[in-house]
């Protein structure tokens, strides 16, 4: 059973994440955690994503529990980590110039949840998430990557596919429906 979806996005991510969330029903059976690269002072991301679809979206507080059908976003200037049944935050140094870092989210999600994770790499113009996606795969989780040609910026999905050639590739419009197929709504 897959009960955690981890999404990473950078340049163009607001539109891409919104598209994914729009496809998830209120009965979605997994918890969702999101890292979108953002300015250290930005506070608008979660309210914007909250309007995208049926699932409630908010900036994560430290130790917020992971709950099916709820979306937690990495707050500006913090790393978001999965720790057991909850999230944890850190202000450790940026990883590859990024805080929040997609790699940190993916690696801790894999560590905590093993094969119960699906990790998704969306549009972006750097290589964050590639190493983390590989870690998710090594722990038996599912790797899902936006088709680079379909992405607003192809570099990040391309880097993810180079690091993790076995990942599934989908155009943006098919990612949300694929997550519903993998995780299912609650019975």
């Amino acid at each position, binding site marked *: 059973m897959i009960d955690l979806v981890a999404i990473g996005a950078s340049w163009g991510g607001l539109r891409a994440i919104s598209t994914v969330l729009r496809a998830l029903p209120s009965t979605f059976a997994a918890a969702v955690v999101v890292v979108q690269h953002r300015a250290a002072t930005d506070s608008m991301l979660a309210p914007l994503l909250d309007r995208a679809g049926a699932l409630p979206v908010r*900036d994560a507080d*430290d*130790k917020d529990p992971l709950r099916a059908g709820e979306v937690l976003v990495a707050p500006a200037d913090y790393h978001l*980590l999965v720790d057991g049944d909850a999230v*944890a935050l*850190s*202000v*450790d140094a940026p990883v590859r110039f990024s805080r929040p870092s997609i790699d940190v989210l993916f690696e801790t999600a894999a560590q*905590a949840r*093993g094969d119960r994770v699906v990790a998704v790499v969306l549009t972006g113009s750097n290589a964050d998430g590639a190493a983390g996606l590989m870690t998710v795969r090594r722990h038996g989780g599912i790797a899902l990557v936006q088709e680079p040609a379909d992405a607003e910026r192809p570099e990040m999905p391309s880097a993810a596919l180079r690091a993790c050639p076995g990942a599934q590739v989908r155009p943006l419009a098919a990612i949300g429906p694929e997550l519903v197929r993998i995780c299912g709504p609650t019975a």
Partner: protein
Amino acid sequence: MSSSESSVEELELELLLEALYRRHGLDFRGYAMASLRRRVWRRVQLDGLATITALTDRLLHHPDVLERLLADLSINVTEMFRDPGFHRALREKVLPLLRTYPFVRVWNAGCSTGEEAYSMAIALQEAGLLDRSRIYATDMNEGALARARTGTVPLASMQSYTENYQRAGGTRGFSEYYEVQGDMAVFDPALTRNIVFAQHNLATDRSFNEFHVIVCRNVMIYFGRDLQRRVHQLFLDSLVPLGLLGLGRKETIQPPELAASYEPLESAEKLYRRRS
């Protein structure tokens, strides 16, 4: 990595923390594991080792690794007036409440290299309170405290600190507070005179005074739930009635029964006031 390899790694991490505690009295067992694991692996890799067990072996038989590991495990990220909105609220909402006290004691818990303590000293100075205040700035890491006691910060940081200071409602020229020596900014001793830097470990040490203000920001995010509860109890026991508590932007008082002992003073900036 299979799930059985994962649980082996978890055991290795537990044994390392047990060794740190029993051999050196340093208790990281209550820390949040996800970030601790990342920090431990960083030391494993920097020391050219393959497993956490190899690091434990080195820790037990070659004590020189202790200082490096301790530096890795300490929370050492800090800046002056980090989150200017918090420091503005401190200045506008908290300091006016302190005017009635003949003497003000502030505890900056987890002060690292002192940047937050200096920031509070500046705010107290501009409110005319510094002369009758004492800031107790504590950290578990002696290395960080030794740097804090120098009263200096790297000059390279001063541009962003100046912007933070202004956004936090600073009323003077920031450069009035320091002079440049080489590549360091040296703070005016009048500012640092009333700061006491001392070693204190939130995981194991007790309350050591009664305070009017406690500020502990982005330190407890590294603690697990049980340790967070211990430290919140410690803070409650260390605050005078109507004393003030300031946390990081994404932290909450846990558990709820301890949170009930406070009322929000400025909830958006995580400033709370202990009920009387």
